[in-house]
């Protein structure tokens, strides 16, 4: 660059790049970028530190007590002398509420995501989004308070009727739909003829009566159930599913959006209805992204503390029978939160370190599921990009 003149012919070297200036610039850039890199790697350092410090306090427990008792015994008496540290029932409780909340949140979340991405017009979608954001924003302790103070007494006093109505409202429409579809499929072999209409009518009627009887019988059985304690696995699973829903909805919606218009239009052109297009074309293409969404949602449920601490009943046993969601349970997170208050005084004891062992278990689980979901998303992006 040549000399530049400014201010009435006065010479200025403001725009001249001397080697000296260039060097200074390069050094400044080097340190600047180095600083940025340092800050950006701070997150990675924090992750390493978390693993290290949780593991350092967890290892003494396994040194003292070994692995067998922790993973295979259900006797959890940490306060005794000598204590018993069997966490199997607690791990089971964590798994139980996680599966329970996934059973509620996954179908609900995926259908909501489909609805948001493919069914609703844009103007309505704008109002649905804040609802999901607000569900995600409500603090976990507020959900826990709701579960403990409002929902648990309801469940305890009106548990049977609540279950019965839930069954009728949810299963009813699906069973009726199933009757229509099955009777259609059963009679579709008989092509044409007036016979078919009557056949179909008869089959539908018979199946319909059977279905209503079935609905009624299950409803009556549910109505007779008396729930002894409102703070149980069902309560927690339901509330946790509220908390996992926003994650599942937003991640699977992203993945559904990522499936391009071309696939959808191709399917419509072949004469498929919207439902068929989504189920047979869009969902398979987005399946891996939805799987990632489910994993992320499950992680929210398993790592949640306050709701399970307040509303799960905190009793460390495997429910009897094993699938009894109306029984109280105890989870890893609630145990850490609840026992640290007393164990804190005795730093160095197995009682203190066992809580870190539980934390490590949660940490490892969340790390693995995170990696898996990330891999899945990357793979889907590559497949959709046609690589």
């Amino acid at each position, binding site marked *: 660059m040549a000399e530049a003149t400014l201010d009435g012919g006065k010479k200025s070297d403001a725009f001249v790049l001397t080697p000296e200036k260039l060097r200074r610039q390069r050094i400044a*850039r080097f340190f600047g970028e180095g600083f*940025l*890199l340092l*800050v*950006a790697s*701070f*997150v*990675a350092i*924090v992750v390493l*530190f*978390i693993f290290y*410090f*949780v593991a350092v*306090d967890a290892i003494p427990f396994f040194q003292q007590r070994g692995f067998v008792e922790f993973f295979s015994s259900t006797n959890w008496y940490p306060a005794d002398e000598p204590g018993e540290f069997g966490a199997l029932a607690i791990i089971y409780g964590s798994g139980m509420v996680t599966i329970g909340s996934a059973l509620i949140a996954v179908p609900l979340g995926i*259908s909501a995501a*489909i*609805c948001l991405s493919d*069914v609703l017009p844009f103007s309505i979608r704008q109002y*649905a989004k804040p*609802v*999901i954001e*607000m*569900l995600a*924003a*409500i*603090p*976990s*302790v*507020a*959900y*826990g308070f*709701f579960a*403990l*103070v*409002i929902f648990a007494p309801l469940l305890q006093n009106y548990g049977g009727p609540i279950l019965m109505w839930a069954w009728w409202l949810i299963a009813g*429409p699906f069973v009726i*739909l199933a009757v*229509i*579809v099955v009777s*259609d*499929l059963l009679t*579709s072999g008989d092509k044409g003829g007036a016979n078919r209409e009557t056949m179909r009518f008869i089959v539908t009627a018979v199946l319909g009566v059977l279905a209503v009887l079935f609905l009624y019988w299950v409803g009556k059985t549910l109505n007779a159930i008396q729930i002894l304690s409102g703070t149980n696995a069902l309560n927690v699973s339901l509330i946790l599913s*509220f908390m996992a*829903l926003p994650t599942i909805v937003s991640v699977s919606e992203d993945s559904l959006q990522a499936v391009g218009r071309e696939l959808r239009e191709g399917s419509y052109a072949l004469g498929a*209805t919207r*439902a*068929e297009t*989504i189920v047979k074309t869009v969902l398979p293409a987005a399946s891996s992204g939805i799987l990632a969404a489910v994993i*992320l949602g499950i992680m929210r449920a398993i*790592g949640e*503390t306050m709701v399970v*601490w307040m509303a799960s009943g905190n009793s460390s046993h495997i429910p009897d029978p094993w699938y009894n969601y109306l029984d109280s349970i105890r989870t890893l997170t609630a145990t850490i*939160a609840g026992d*640290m208050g007393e164990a804190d005084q005795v730093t160095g004891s197995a009682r203190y370190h066992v809580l870190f062992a539980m*934390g490590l278990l*949660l940490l490892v689980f*969340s790390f693995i599921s*995170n*990696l898996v979901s*990330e891999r899945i998303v990357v793979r889907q992006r590559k497949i959709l990009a046609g690589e």
Partner: protein
Amino acid sequence: MDLGTRKILDRSFTAVGVTSILLMAMALLVVIVPIFSNGIGAIFFKGTIEHRKLQYNEFRKGNPDVLQQQITETDSYRNNAFSIVEAFEAEMEGMEPGEKKKEYASQYTSVRKILAHLLGPLPGDMEPILLRYQYGATRWEKAEEALHELMFVTKWDYSDPTKMATQYFVPRADEFAGTALADLFPYMENNLEKMLLPEQTFYWGFITERSLDAHIFGGIWAEIQGTFFLAVGAMLFAFPLGVIAAIYFTEYAKDNFFTSILRSANSTLAGVPSIVFGLFGLAFFINTMKVSESKSVLAGSLTLAIMILPTIIRAAEEAILAVPKTYKEASLGLGSTKWRTIVTVILPAALPGIITGGIISLGRAAGETAPIIFTAAVSVGATIGLADVFNSPTPALSWNIYNLASEHEAANEIRHVQYGMVLALISIVLLLNLSAILLRARISQKLKG
């Protein structure tokens, strides 16, 4: 399949989708509506004269002359009730010892207890030490509950062993029929209002006053302030770090293995369960770094900061990426350096988006409980000054909601305080989120032009 069936399936598919969205909206309402409607009761309620006495004695609020006048007014009715009680005591003295007397004595003890609960210490009682026994029912609906308890004895029917026991009530007046105390019950029922003088009260002090006697009376200012310190402290650490990291990721990071490791570290951090942050905060900030002797606001803020860091980074990245490429190109084309472009062009354009992310993270930090259990929160505590944040713990809304609802000795008595706290916390968080949503709507309008 039949075309008709296919159509039905298609319709029901749509119906399922719409229903699931409606269910989510309903879930939100089902959680929020009872909390709002009950939480308002912490501020608007029918306050009795006991509430006004308490307010005057503890906080010097209210008009002493009016209060004194009302006290004399109520005392005349109260004294009538007390004289009935005294008459009964005299009658009991005269009774022969035996089963009957024992029965009366035990019943009478519970009557006295309920009376004290309604009206404050009775004549002849010792001056109680705990504040909760120094005043009667401060809220009219609590007084009505206590009155029902006074009027009826609760009994349980165990006659059907196959079912749970059912509750039934026996009028207490029947138990004391024929004694002097029998007159007390109709008298209390008719004159309770005159003894307590309930008035519609707007108790703003619930927000601004300290709590008295472990939240039995008073407000929640200490908790609100603690939540504020913790959340703002977390932002002070996390916001600058997050924005700088986002600048690195969007503008400088090369697409290589190292960057991908940093990115997956970010999403790992976002997925760490909140209670594990608490464990880490205890093990690292308190036990290893010793940032404070034991729990402190500083340790809690640091723990919350690393928890919200990934959210801030992600939001800032998105905001920076949303800035149109033309801005950057124009700036670079004018000859400014990359760093100058970032500072003077890209960041100002991305700022509203970055702030949106910051606000949402602030709400998350304010609402989170698990990370502060071991690092910052105490159940009962006074308000702390700004200078104390380095070494003293603080009560916080989120932790005290848990504590009052599950561990407080009188959890059932102070439901209104709990609801009020939940309402305060939810209002803070939802208002923050609402402002973020509005801000974002404005940005997207601006970007559309």
